[in-house]
């Protein structure tokens, strides 16, 4: 009896998943168009759940915007046209990859600045350690060195 009711539950769950995935039956003209749809919805942000893409989100707005993207694809618009359509309405925030422009230079350049800073620090500390090792008569005694004993700038 237990097994039977479990089976019933499993079957119900199966139908539940089927009906959920059938919520948005999008028919694409070809594989290429389908790929573009998936690529675009991965790159666009759902503004309701702001850490989700349009592809991931189940918010009503995401449904509406996916439909919008789908219809624009069907009518032959380019990826750039579709993105522009959304940016004109929702701003750059809708793009997961923001454009490089005046107010995003800092955003784009920070990783590079951090990397450069790291390289400089690394170089300085290697220089210090090399100097320490060459000055030291018996470097093997303290091969790792003690940061607190390093010469100051």
């Amino acid at each position, binding site marked *: 009896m237990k097994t039977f009711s479990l089976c019933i539950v499993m079957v119900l769950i199966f139908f539940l998943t089927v009906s959920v995935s059938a919520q948005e039956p999008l028919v694409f003209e070809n594989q290429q168009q389908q790929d573009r749809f998936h690529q675009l919805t991965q790159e666009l942000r759902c503004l309701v759940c702001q850490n989700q893409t349009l592809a991931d989100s189940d918010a009503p707005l995401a449904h*509406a915007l996916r439909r919008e993207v789908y219809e624009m694809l069907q009518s032959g618009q380019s990826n750039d046209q579709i993105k522009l359509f959304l940016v*004109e*309405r929702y*701003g750059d925030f809708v793009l997961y990859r923001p454009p490089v422009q005046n107010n995003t230079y800092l955003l784009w350049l920070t990783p590079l600045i951090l990397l450069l800073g790291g390289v400089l620090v690394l170089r300085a500390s290697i220089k210090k350690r090399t100097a320490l090792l060459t000055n030291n008569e018996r470097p093997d005694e303290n091969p790792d060195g003690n940061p607190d004993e390093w010469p*100051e700038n």
Partner: protein
Amino acid sequence: MNSRVVPLLVFILLIGLLLVGLKISDRKTLIPSPLIGKQVPTFDLPVLDNPGQNLSQESFLGKPYLVNFWASWCPTCRVEHPVITELAKRNAISIVGLNFRDLPADARTWLDRYGDPYDVILVDADGRVSIDFGVYAAPETFLVDAAGIIVFKHIGALTSEIIENEILPRVAAMPPTERERSQ
């Protein structure tokens, strides 16, 4: 000495960053709208109480008005409803309700229950116009001037502070000649 001070400074900096982040996350609804300063999007929508009649953005040229996106499924709209009712009583500005992604029957039930503060309600059943306005949360309110330019947008429930400090001063600052010019 330096090697002890530097990590401490970095730590303090990170704490500062954390605090700023916490403060900003409170206001994450404040995504600046690209529509501020631009012409109101074009629309042509049926009137809720008179489905045979359509109104476009041109019907509203000549005097400033508020566009308030609401729906019966939106709990926050109920929160701001008394504030809108209060504003409507003052006759300071006409208020256009934009009932979006909603059923007319549900909308009417909602209005019967809570009251109808709007001068006119337009029906955007499939939400197309709400997308053109860049609406992503409900309610959202736009202040449009007599020339059809969006001058202010508020996301979320209107409060009497927003009305007193943001909306009414902007309405008062609009040149009265605009009314005559656009008519």
